[in-house]
């Protein structure tokens, strides 16, 4: 039976980041006299950072594949601009606009993926070019001015909440119900996974740890849902986020596709000689990134209710930082979806907390940079210690 100490040692990376997140949250909670965890602020935090998380999902795949994408901020702005122009100047309906925007994102991803995967130009260069190209095209598209406002349905993309079917004063019951169902589902899945492991004779974590872990998760889920429920309920964005995280978590850990991306990043030549069509796979990884950048771009635009030429500046850096803080390896082949999500939340909480404390953007940047360096140092240090 493993002891808790060895368990922690073996998973120091995963738990370490989670603990860091909790510590930082507690710190800001204390420093801001409890504002951080107020329902309205938590909701804001999710809304503000949703696009970072969405793009981090795509970026993680790119980084695991061994590359990088610097263009995502510009692409998000460009797609946002297209959506705005379509709706405001050409009166396109919001549903069609979303569809077209996603397709444009996919085409941009295909454009960049083509140069990287088939022409073999390093992604750093291709996406640096993309960063300039699409920032420029955003300006062209908007002709230098802000375009808005949008139909309410489109705004709902970022500011909407799920409807409540029970009209109980001061509490969003549907949200609580969803939280309860989710908690039960998570516990059920964990029990099944544990049974499966035992069936094949693998060592499982101690029972008390299993119980504590599930209790903790249930508390976290229900706590978050309660906070949301006492405001306006679950934001639509959070639901989209949850679905996307689950989907990408599943793809990376359970499917042939995911396995191949990790193999390609771990050793491209060996993967190719094992029958993996690596150029095609890399191409589609970029297409996927384009679609997610487009989605993020629309959410940002919807949130601001205007498309501006300066939207999304510097997003790529937050997104890349989220992946590396979350434990992805710059040389490829290593990185987890959940890590990137925790990394993105960490950055989000710091952005939010520091703003609440009135720390200027100058120091915010410096502090975020240090956190990135420390997190990666922690990785390297651990790796060297284990070898």
């Amino acid at each position, binding site marked *: 039976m493993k002891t808790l100490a060895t368990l922690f040692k073996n998973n120091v990376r995963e738990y370490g980041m989670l603990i860091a997140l909790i510590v930082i949250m507690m710190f800001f909670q204390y420093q801001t006299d409890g504002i951080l965890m107020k329902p309205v602020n938590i909701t804001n935090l999710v809304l503000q950072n949703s696009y970072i998380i969405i793009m981090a999902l795509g970026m993680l795949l790119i980084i695991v594949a061994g590359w990088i994408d610097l263009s995502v901020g510009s692409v998000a702005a460009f797609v946002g601009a297209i959506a705005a122009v379509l709706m405001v100047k050409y009166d396109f309906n919001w549903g069609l606009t979303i569809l077209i925007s996603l397709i444009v994102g996919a085409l941009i991803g295909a454009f960049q993926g083509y140069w990287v995967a088939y022409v073999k130009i390093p992604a750093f260069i291709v996406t640096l070019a993309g960063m300039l190209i699409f920032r420029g095209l955003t300006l062209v598209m908007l002709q230098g001015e802000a375009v808005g406002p949008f139909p309410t349905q489109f705004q709902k993309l970022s500011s909407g909440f799920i409807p409540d079917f029970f009209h109980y004063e001061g509490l969003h019951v549907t949200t609580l119900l969803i939280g309860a169902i989710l908690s039960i589902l998570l516990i059920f899945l964990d029990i099944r996974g544990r049974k*499966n492991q035992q*069936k*094949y004779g*693998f060592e499982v974590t101690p029972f008390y740890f299993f119980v504590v872990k599930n209790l903790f998760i249930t508390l976290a889920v229900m706590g978050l849902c309660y906070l949301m429920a006492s405001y306006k309920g679950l934001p639509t964005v959070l639901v989209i986020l949850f679905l996307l995280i689950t989907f990408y978590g599943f793809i990376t850990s*359970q*499917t*042939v*596709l995911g*396995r*191949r991306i*990790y*193999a390609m990043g*771990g*050793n491209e*030549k*060996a*993967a*190719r*000689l*094992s*029958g*993996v*069509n690596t150029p095609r796979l890399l191409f589609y990884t970029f297409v996927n990134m384009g679609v997610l950048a487009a989605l993020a771009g629309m959410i940002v635009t919807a949130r601001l209710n205007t498309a501006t030429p300066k939207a999304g500046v510097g997003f790529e850096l937050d997104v890349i930082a989220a992946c590396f803080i979350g434990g992805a390896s710059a040389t490829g*082949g*290593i990185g987890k979806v959940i890590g990137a999500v925790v990394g993105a939340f960490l950055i989000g909480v710091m952005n939010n907390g520091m703003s609440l404390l009135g720390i200027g953007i100058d120091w915010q940047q410096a502090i975020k940079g240090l956190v990135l360096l420390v997190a990666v140092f922690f990785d390297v240090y651990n790796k060297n210690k284990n070898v």
Partner: protein
Amino acid sequence: MPDVILEMRNITKTFPGVKALDNVTFSVRQGEIHALVGENGAGKSTLMKVLSGVYPHGSYSGDIYFQGKECRFRDITESEEVGLVIIHQELALIPFLSIAENLFLGNERAKNGVINWNESISKTIELLDRVGLHESPNTLITNMGVGKQQLVEIAKALAKKVKLLILDEPTASLNESDSEKLLGLLLQLKENGISSILISHKLGEVNKVADSITILRDGATIETLDCQKDTITEDRIIRGMVGRDLTHRFPPRDSKIGDTIFEVRNWNVYHPLHENRKVSDDINFNVRKGEVVGIAGLMGAGRTELAMSIFGQAYGTRISGKAYKSGKEIDISTIDKAIENGIAYATEDRKAFGLILIEEIKNNITLTNLKAISDGGVINEPKEMTVTSEYRDKLNIKCSSILQLALNLSGGNQQKVVLSKWLFAGPDILILDEPTRGIDVGAKYEIYTIINRLASEGKGIVMISSELPEILGVCDRIYVMREGRMVGELPASEASQEIVMKYIMTQQEVME
């Protein structure tokens, strides 16, 4: 002995699980050209790496005396300081720098870090003149042929005031006239009192210039022949290189050979960068069910290139020729299709091309055939565990768990993972490229046993190997490749190391 410039006494060097050098003694006289010959893997390069400090003092046992003084080199700079310069087979020149820049790299003519270009250029002209190379000092290395680059390497050595020059297969990639020139230069340097050690597989040129020949075999000195006293024939050298006891190194097998399962006809491949260089020249070969076919040859003979071009055109351009499986023509134009048609290629370089080192054993094994352990694109992990555990047991992979990273396995066990991964693809034809390179004797025996078992299951096996005893001990039939062509085919029963070695080595006679 005042006329001895170098003496290496009782040198022993071990790698994990392998004794690469076993009590080797080697000495070079002042002002002679001393040839060092032996099969691939006999320990020639290791010995030279010990000498030049690539393997620092302390990582081997034994003593080195240079000009009568004991030397304990910690790195290559220290050995160069006393005048010992090694020129590797893969040249160490920077392609986009000029001749002059390369000549003084790490040894710049400079004052306070500022390079004196006038001095550099004039010195370069002087050195180029000594090696008989008429090029501008500003010519970029990338714009010169290999023969001229070789001369630049020698000029670079001269710039370092070389006393003993070591050349590792200097003529391997040179044509006839460039080789002549190079050998002439060695003789000329000898006149000027510079001794050299020449590692070469070309016995003709060894005989032409060497004053003495030392033969290494299995990491031990066999003999040193004095060419000035006796006339040495090539046969005499070959006998020294190969004579050894083969009993008990190979598991017994009785072959049941069926019909032809795989055949390649008129196969031509060109080099991917030098488009006019043919790396496979009109090759025909076949393998039958239950048969182990060996492809012998020197490194660089084009065996790996042939195998990879067959395996879904993983190497080369302008590939032409036909492939047949059990008499029917098959399409092997992509790796996917090759695998689908039952062909597997286990690479010679398992770390670079065979394994994903940062991943688990399990993931490495199933990568070739993820379909078999997934439903609708979703991996069935329990099934994957079961399947890979079976391979671990069947091939005896020594590991703490199939969740162990491939990185942390020994060479022999890594090789077994590579084999497992290709067996998991369910091939009918297995091409094994140097399947026992760099692994110890015990693991080699296990690999041979696996090969025998696969053959007895009716698979066709092609084994590329640079170790002749292995080819003779394992194969039913042997092809010999040289410079991109099949130059010999003989049944193992009629083959001996001497005969195969002759096919491999004596190209000049056959070609002219």
